[in-house]
Every structure is written in C-alpha cells, then in structure tokens.
C-alpha cells in the first residue's frame, strides 16, 4: 500500500502548493450562498398598488385606511389614487404599478346590506412572487374586514393551529446544505476529474504505468487523494457557511461528527461517480464540457432548491439515483433540524454504497496499459 500512499502524497503536495483549486471550489458556493441567500426569501417591500375608488362610501374609506396601515407598518405596498380603471390596468400592464384595486360603485351599500360585496384586484401574474405577496396581504385585509366586530363566545368554525418545530429558517440557512454539496462537487470535478484527465494527457500516468504499481493501488491512490480534497472543501464550506448564515451547529460536537460522516460519505460518492465517468476519457476537453451538464443533471433534481415532491415522475426517478439528493437531505437534517444519526443513516448508507459501487465498476475499466 506504500505505492498507493505515494500517489496520495503527490496529489496532496500538488494540492497544497496550488491553493487555487481550494479557492475556486469554495468561491462559487460561497458567492451563491451570499447572493442568493440574501436575494431570495426576503419579503416584498415598497410595491405600488393603484386604487380606483368608484364608491367613496364609508366602507371604501375603511378599506383605504387598511391599505394605509400596511404602507406605514409592514410596508408591503403603498397606494396611488387613480380615477380611471382603464388607465390603472394599462399601468399594471406596463409595469408602472404592481397591481390595481378596483372598489366598485355601491360597494359600501352592498357591505351594509350584506349583498355579496366585491372588490377587484388586477394583478401582474407574470411575476408570481410579487403578485402572490400582494394577494396574500389583500386577502388578510379582506379577512379582517369580514371578521365580526364582536367575536362569538364559542367558535363554530375550524381553526388551524400551526406548531413550528424549528426556529425561523431564512433562505440563507435553507441554501447552506446545497452550497456544501456544490462545493464538494466542484472540488471533485476539478481536483478529481479534470486533473485526472490533464495528468493523463500530460503523460504523468505513463510515468506511473512503467512502475510496479498495481491497478488497484493506482485507482485507490487517485481516488483517496480526490476524496480528501473534497472532504477538505466540504469542511471549509460547512464552517464558513454556518458562520455566514448564523448557525451554531458547528459548535456542537455530536452534530460535527454527524456532519463529518456525511461529508466523508459525500466525498466518496461524488468521487466514485466522477471516476467511473472519467475512467476511459482521454480528451481534456471532455470533463470541462461535462461540468455544466452534470451540475444541471445532479444539483437541481436533488431537492437542493425546490422540493422533490413537486417534481414530475421522471424527475423524481432521477432524484432517486442522484447522490446529491441524499447529500442535501442529510445536510438539511443535521444543519436545519439537528436530526442526529437517526435522520441520516439512510443517506449515509446510500452515499457509501453508491461511491464504493462506482469504484468497483470503474476499477476493472481502468486500463493498466496505454
């Protein structure tokens, strides 16, 4: 096994001599965490809503006072008065305002008469996030106005009581597991796949093949080195990402051990998969061309950004065999939920079995000659 360790030593010396690999494998996930974590998941503030009031009655005034309260307090939107409904619609279409509330004639009278009063909301549903937020706020206003002034002593309607198991999870925290997985994938892709093919093309492998090293020693040496690099990337991003997202999980020894096992399993799974894909590749351009495609195929179907349960059947099938799925699930279970080994044992088992299985298939495919 000394010859295997010679390969590992060579790879690791190279790795530490040129820290660019480590920097580049961490840079993109950290930026993603920083930018996407802050850009997404925030609440809509300062939207503009046109109000066309044809009624001007007391109930319409009540409604407009409610809008003003929103503008002053949670600031989701401010209102702009319009006199012409068509002009308001046109401005919604051209993006000058984000929505338009139409208060029809006879609104106040219908409210008083309890005669199916209605207000209209023209919304720009091409931006579902903003329109959804505005609809939500307006829905709350309408519910509040519909509520009886005096609450009945015995509630006769069904109420849903929500119990949140975990503290508030902002988007940056939600994104952290995906970013750790991404950092490890980039490390394996560059430090495993690309360097492997580049070394082959440069004749470095030719140098190895004329020595008495066995096929197994060579395969294990190359893969151990690549897995160590991915593990280091995973550890770095877990620590940096947790600090950025304000998570204290890294200060809990038990959770740290669970994370370390998960990082190790992920490194073995990603590396085994990459070696299997690259074992017969000769052209240095191939791994570069595969980088983006693989990222798309593995990262997005994993549930890293959107829940797997929302996928169509064929995409769910891809998620089932995707090691990213188990890696992201495991990291979420520890980082966001502190679920312990009970929550991640299946993920760990899948990752280790998948990685070792890939290596078992790849080893006989590895050519001991040129």
């Amino acid at each position: 096994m000394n010859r295997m360790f010679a390969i590992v030593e060579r790879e690791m010396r190279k790795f530490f001599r040129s820290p660019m690999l480590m920097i580049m494998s961490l840079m993109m996930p950290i930026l993603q965490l920083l930018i996407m974590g802050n850009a997404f998941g925030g609440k809509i503030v300062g939207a503009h809503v046109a109000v066309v009031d044809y009624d001007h009655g007391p109930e319409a005034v009540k409604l407009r006072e409610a809008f003003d309260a929103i503008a002053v307090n949670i600031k989701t939107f401010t209102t702009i008065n319009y006199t012409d409904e068509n002009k308001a619609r046109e401005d919604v279409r051209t993006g000058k305002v984000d929505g338009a509330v139409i208060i029809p004639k006879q609104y106040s009278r219908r409210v008083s008469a309890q005669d199916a009063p209605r207000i209209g909301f023209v919304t720009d549903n091409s931006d579902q996030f903003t329109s959804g937020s505005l609809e939500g706020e307006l829905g709350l206003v309408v519910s509040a106005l519909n509520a009886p002034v005096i609450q009945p002593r015995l509630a006769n309607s069904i109420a849903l009581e929500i119990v949140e198991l975990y503290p508030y999870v902002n988007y940056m925290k939600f994104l952290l597991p995906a970013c750790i997985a991404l950092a490890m994938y980039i490390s394996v892709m560059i430090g495993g796949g690309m360097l492997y093919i580049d070394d082959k093309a440069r004749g470095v492998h030719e140098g190895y093949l004329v020595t008495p090293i066995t096929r197994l020693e060579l395969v294990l040496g190359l893969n151990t080195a690549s897995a160590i690099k991915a593990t280091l990337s995973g550890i770095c991003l877990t620590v940096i990402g947790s600090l950025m997202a304000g998570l204290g999980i890294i200060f809990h020894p038990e959770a740290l051990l669970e994370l370390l096992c998960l990082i190790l399993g992920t490194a073995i799974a990603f590396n085994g998969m990459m070696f299997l894909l690259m074992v017969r590749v000769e052209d240095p351009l191939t791994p570069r061309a595969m980088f983006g495609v693989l990222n798309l195929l593995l990262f997005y179907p994993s549930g890293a950004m959107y829940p797997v349960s929302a996928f169509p059947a064929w995409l769910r099938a891809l998620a089932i065999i995707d090691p990213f799925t188990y890696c992201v699930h495991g990291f979420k279970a520890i980082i966001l939920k502190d679920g312990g080994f009970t929550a991640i044992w299946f993920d760990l088992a899948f990752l280790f079995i998948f990685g070792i299985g890939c290596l078992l298939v790849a080893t006989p495919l590895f050519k001991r000659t040129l």
Partner: protein
Amino acid sequence: MSEPAFYPDQNADRGAPTAIAVEHIVKRYGDFEAVKDVSFSVVEGEIFGLLGPNGAGKSTLIRMMTTLVPITAGKAMVAGFDVEKDPDAVRRKIGVIPQALTSDPDLTVEENLSIYAKLYSVPRVQREKNIAEVLEAVDLTKWRGAQTKTLSGGMRRRLEIARGLVHNPHIFFLDEPTTGLDPVSRIAVWEMLDNLRRTRNLTMLITTHYMEEADKLCDRIAIVDHGKLVALGTPMELKHSVPGANVVEVHFNRETEEWKGRLESLEGVTSVQAESAGFYRVLTSSGSRTTMQLVEMATALGETITSLSVQNTTLDDVFVHYTGRQLRDEQVKPAAFMLPPRPGEQR
C-alpha cells in the same frame, strides 16, 4: 521474418549476456500495422539506438518493451523476463524516460524523485542514498529543494533522467531524450548518459530522430522506417555498408535536365540525388577525384559552380540509402505547407 537490409553483428559474437531480445514483434491498431515483424537484441552495457523519423514506430516499440502497450504478436524479453507474461518483473528492472517532461512542476526536485522511489518501493534509507547519488550524477544536487517549474528545459530533462534511475534499474529506456533541447544542453545530456553507462553499467535503449545523437551516443543503431527495421549495425558498419565513401554536394548557378545524367557518368559515382534546383548530393568512392572531374566538366560546358563541398558518408546518407529518402524529409509533412495552385497552374 523480414531481415533488415544490413545485419552484420549478432550478440553471440559480442560475448556479453543479452539484456533485451525482441523476436518478430508486431503491433496492430485495427488495420494499421505500426510495428511490422521487428527482431533485434541488445547486450548488457550497450547503448542501442532506434533511429527513424516521427511516426516510424520507434515509440510504439519502446512502449511495448516497457509494458505500456500490449504486444499484438511476437515476443519481447527484457532483463530475462517475458514482457507479456511477467510485466511486473520487467518494470522492477527498468527505468523509463518518456518523451514528454512529466515531472511535477509544483513539486521540488527531491519530492519528484522521492515519490518515484516510493512507487518502486525503495526502502527509506536506500531511498535517501539513491536520491543523493542520482542528483550528483545529473548535477542537480544544489537544486534539490527547487520547485521543478523553476528549472530550465535542460535541467528538467536531467531531472527526468534522475527519476528514471532512482531505483537503480538495470536497463534504461529513453524516448527521444533530447527533443526540444538547445544544442549545448543536448551535448550535456549525451555526456551525462555516456558517463552513466560507464559508472552504473547500464544498458540503454534510446529512440531518436537526430542523426548526430545516434552517431555520437549509440554503440549500435537500428534504423526504423514505416514500422520495419531496415538496417542494424554500429554507426561505422552502417556507413561502410553504403556504396561510396564520400558525399560531394554541388550547387550550380542554373538547373538543366542534363545535370543528373552527367554527374552519374563521372568516375566512382554510385548515386546522385537532386536536392533542389541546381543542387545535387553525389555519393562517390573518391571525393577528390569526383571533385576534380566535376570542376573540369563545368568549365568545359561554361557553367558556374556556386558552391562545392566534400564530406564523409553520414547516417543521413545511410538512411537515404536504405529508405530512398532523407530523414529530415519526414520531420515536416510537405503537404501541410503546400500552397494551393494558382488559377491555371498545373501540378
């Protein structure tokens, strides 16, 4: 077996044990036959050269002998072991320097050597001793801590040679060891290899397309062309095998169709090769006599000779003799530099 055109020496006559024996070796890639039924042997302590143009099959031959490429047919014995049946035993006995510079630029000279010593399972104490010795042998001791990327091309080539020696091999294979080096570095490498052979009793097999390198460095040379062994012998034997002891190079101020015939009719001339317009290489048994006749002929015809030189036969002439063309013709593919014909031009 296709016997080479010239095969004057057999190892049995040399009285030394055989280090490498290649018998009827063939390498095919699909329908393409890269090496065609080649046989030769190398005795211990010998520097043996495979000389030929790029694509002749030299590197394929060396790769088969060093276990890198499977042999399609035939047999190769290296250090007494069958390359196909016992490749690991062969690998332990040989050192190989590939054509490309493959030492790691990010690692130091010593680290590069140490990792290769470990790949050969050289014990720690022996490893340190070997590294010190090979660094001394290639004159890189004071650079042992330097990163490889800071070394010059010649120094990197010396490091490659040291790397191939770090486990004390018996047989050393070098694939184009001086390609890409400047003339000074090339001569330094030749001297170093010759010195290593003497001090370490190494057997060396070298591929090259440099005539001068083969002539100066090798005890015996095998000329390889289109995958076939076309001639084999010592440089002197090969030169003597070519009819004509001298080469006269003559350049006339204008080209006429009659020059070739006139030159061939001169006394002692064995072959005439047209190099370019008005420029001819004439193989002759007597350079001085042919020169005198040539000058007299030109004077009588009222033609002007712009340059004239007389040389001894070189390996280039040997190559021309056995293959029908010059080795340097193969270095650059003419078609790659051929201009398209002008409109109306006939070719």
